[in-house]
């Protein structure tokens, strides 16, 4: 495409940096912005500015928030004795959509990934330990991803909390509801056996 406009090229370049957006899609989005009415286009720009200027991490749990404490931490109906540990804010959103949990969260903002140079000090683990030190938490639920790094992160945290009077549990994993045992792959069966619960 001929670069007849530097400002248009600039917008296309910014769209092309977004995850999953290639050059063609970036051009399509840029032309869309030109085509819609001005108010709608500027509303998009304002929304981006807004989210960056007004949204930050909750001072207590590191979920996204517009105030010092997020909506979940401010909710008096929530049980502060229950703390669910997740890797990312999007994991909180997924668990909230499931709707079965009434405790609080702690977002690590990543996972321990030594091969990527990410150690415990790069996450919010110290803040988590300080939270548990305050004594209100009775159960810590590990909800890191069921991957090698996620499991390693959960184990590191469980070890760090070993001296505190808290129960450490982790999400059950295993057989999908509605699936058939004989067709379940053996890794999942092994997980399901390890994570068996009292009947």
């Amino acid at each position, binding site marked *: 495409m001929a670069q007849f406009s530097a400002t248009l090229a600039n917008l296309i370049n910014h769209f092309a940096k977004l*995850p*999953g957006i290639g050059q063609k899609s970036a051009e399509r989005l840029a032309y869309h912005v030109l085509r819609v009415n001005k108010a709608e286009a500027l509303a998009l720009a304002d929304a981006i500015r807004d989210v960056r200027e007004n949204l930050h991490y909750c001072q207590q749990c590191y979920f996204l928030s517009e105030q010092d404490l997020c909506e979940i931490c401010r909710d008096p109906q929530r049980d502060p004795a229950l703390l669910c540990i997740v890797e990312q804010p999007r994991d909180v959103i997924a668990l909230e959509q499931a709707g079965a949990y009434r405790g609080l969260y702690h977002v690590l903002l990543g996972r321990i990934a*030594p091969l990527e140079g990410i150690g415990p000090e790069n996450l919010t683990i110290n803040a988590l330990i300080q939270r548990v030190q305050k004594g209100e938490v009775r159960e810590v639920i590990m909800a890191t991803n069921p*991957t090698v790094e996620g*499991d*390693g992160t959960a*184990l590191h945290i469980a070890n760090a909390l070993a001296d505190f009077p808290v129960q450490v549990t982790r999400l059950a994993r295993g057989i999908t509801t509605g699936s058939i045992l004989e067709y379940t792959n053996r890794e999942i069966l092994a997980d399901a056996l390890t994570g068996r619960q009292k009947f």
Partner: protein
Amino acid sequence: MAAEKSLAIVVRMVEFSETSLVVSLFTRDFGKIGALAKGARRPKSAFEGALDLLSVCRVVFLHKSTDALDLLTEAKLVRRFRAGARDLTRLYAGYYVAELLDELTHPGDPHPDLYDAAEQALAELDGAGSVTAVALRFEMTALRILGHMPSLSECVGCGKPVEAVGRVAFGMLEGGVLCPDCRPGKRQVVSISAEGVKTLQGFADATTEAWRGQTVHPKIWGELRGVLNHYLANLLGKKPKLHEFLGTLAE
């Protein structure tokens, strides 16, 4: 662009997009490859959760002739590395195996013997093998297969046998032990205890599995880490990321 099949160990994974991963695989038949796994982060992907660090998989990939990423089309799980859920030292030693495979080898340079050694080391780390013994054996095996084994019984300067008594000089730049005649004037020379040298010799000997009966005394492990960390950092031109964790592995 041919479809290739091989056994492979996942040595690195980077999120590429909302749904895709870029993986570094150490394959048995083609050496290290970098491949794009499209859709791997979707819940029902063609890879069925096989792609995780340290997993052994049977993979199919489209080999690109240029330096573009290969395209991973299939990955069937052979064995998952599970020790990370119960023992951090086993996990970090496993990460170190992956780091050595990734850093010491080059794309398009297959070493089936190194692959077999790595798969076995991971299986033993995931089982009940001694963490330090398995890690040291794998380290020495990788150095031997890739032609970087330091000289441990003959002087790297003059070839004369060097006896493991008292303290033995080890030249980092020369790559091995030095006799008293060759030592003067050399830079980056450390001295190793006789027991340390004998331990290295035992773990380096490819003709025997006698290392299995050997335990690495914590003091010797500490000493050997000092030497090997320095040697590998020189070899790679940078400090391996897992080195700071290895010092804590002594049993």
